[in-house]
């Protein structure tokens, strides 16, 4: 079961349609955008697990800019860039800027599905790690409160014992008055 939400940004209507169909058939929730500007608007309004974007799109927002927008929105959003064979260098540059992967045109969908499964796996592991961390935090803070309370109680008791010791061993007073003072100290607590 593929539950990831995917945003596809590509200005070529044929490719866009193909992505939509293949990804939907594979069980992913797909949204398509006609260019970077529409994709940016969608990212502003909602969030996605994965963004697949063409590197070269008309308008002010190309693939690299969209990558930046997605990562600024959340580092959790994974971005795959689609590139023409001739511009692999740009794709490598995109990966340096935080893209998780790149695919060359024409897109091999089997390859894309493998990459998406890997992304889903990592996301699942991260969620699990996050859950464990959360469970640990709850246990830790509850234990911390108990331990800190005990630490203070114990420290106060120790202080009391030290004072009692001082009173009881004070040779300037007779035994009766030492005991009286000790009892007075205990009662006053």
């Amino acid at each position: 079961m593929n539950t990831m939400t995917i945003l596809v940004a590509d200005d070529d209507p044929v490719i866009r349609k193909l992505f939509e169909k293949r990804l939907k058939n594979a069980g992913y929730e797909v949204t398509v955008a006609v260019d970077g500007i529409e994709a940016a608007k969608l990212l502003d309004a909602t969030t996605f697990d994965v963004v697949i974007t063409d590197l070269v799109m008309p308008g002010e927002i190309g693939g690299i800019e969209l990558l930046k927008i997605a990562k600024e929105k959340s580092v959790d959003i994974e971005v795959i860039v689609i590139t023409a064979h001739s511009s692999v260098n740009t794709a490598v540059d995109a990966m340096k800027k935080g893209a998780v992967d790149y695919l060359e045109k024409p897109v091999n969908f089997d390859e894309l599905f493998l990459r998406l499964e890997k992304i889903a796996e990592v996301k699942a592991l991260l969620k699990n790690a996050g859950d464990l961390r959360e469970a640990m935090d709850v246990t830790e803070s509850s234990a911390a409160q108990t331990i800190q309370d005990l630490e203070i109680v114990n420290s106060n008791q120790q202080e009391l014992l030290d004072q009692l010791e001082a009173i009881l061993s004070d040779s300037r007073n007779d035994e009766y008055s030492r005991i009286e003072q000790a009892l007075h100290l205990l009662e006053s607590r």
Partner: protein
Amino acid sequence: MLKITSEEIKLITKYIYDISGIYLDESKKYLLETRLNAIAEEQGCTSYQDFYKKVKADASKTIERKIVDAISTNETLFFRDTGPFQLLQHKIFPELIDARSTKTPSLKTNLKIWSAASSTGQELYSVAIVLQELLGDLSKYAIKLLGTDISDAAVAQASSGKFNKFEIERGLARDKLTKYFTPFGQTWKINDQIRAMVNFRKFNLMLPFAGLGKFDVVLCRNVAIYFTLEDRKKLFNKIADVLEPDGYLIIGSTESLTGICPRFIPKRHLRSIFYQLK
């Protein structure tokens, strides 16, 4: 995976204790196997007996360093539990700055802070960020932030000031991320200004603390839990020796000094505890 016998467990745990002070008992068989297997296989060892011999014969101590890196737990994050950092920001630093401020404007206010088990640096960088936010202009202060750890790998990462997205995501608020970090390829790099405030180096807490000087604040969180009771006593005694008379000690939120070091008294501020010398 290479299997470890109970005889070998004794041998290896004793060895790990000797080089790091980390105490593992026989119940930690799984931990030993999972953390040491790669190093043992890399050395072409057929048993842990064999592994032990190779390690002891390695004069360069390369394998020893790898073992320490593998066995030490580098679980840390930026602002790991918020309590201590609020404590620093709202109580400890204001009090210290009051106490240390000089009447002469040309003299700088000195502050020395030690993160005794700094791991990959998140704790100390968090402290640096707190100071930066609290003090703004740092030119009037001479601040020394020292981070030490037993693991070379952890010290190297801390020194690099680079963190991957998983490390960054945990604990660090968005505003602090954009303010104090710059994207650096797939990682984030701490800004030079914060980086310049801190120093990291390798140090084994089992050794004498001679030459460290005195500190106004010592953070020793979640490291003593790996030591024996006897070693914990020695550790906190040594910390008491290097703490200024009015200095502050912060330990892990689930740790306690009861029965460990009577030289310290616990004090509570809001939901956190810190320790001062009696």
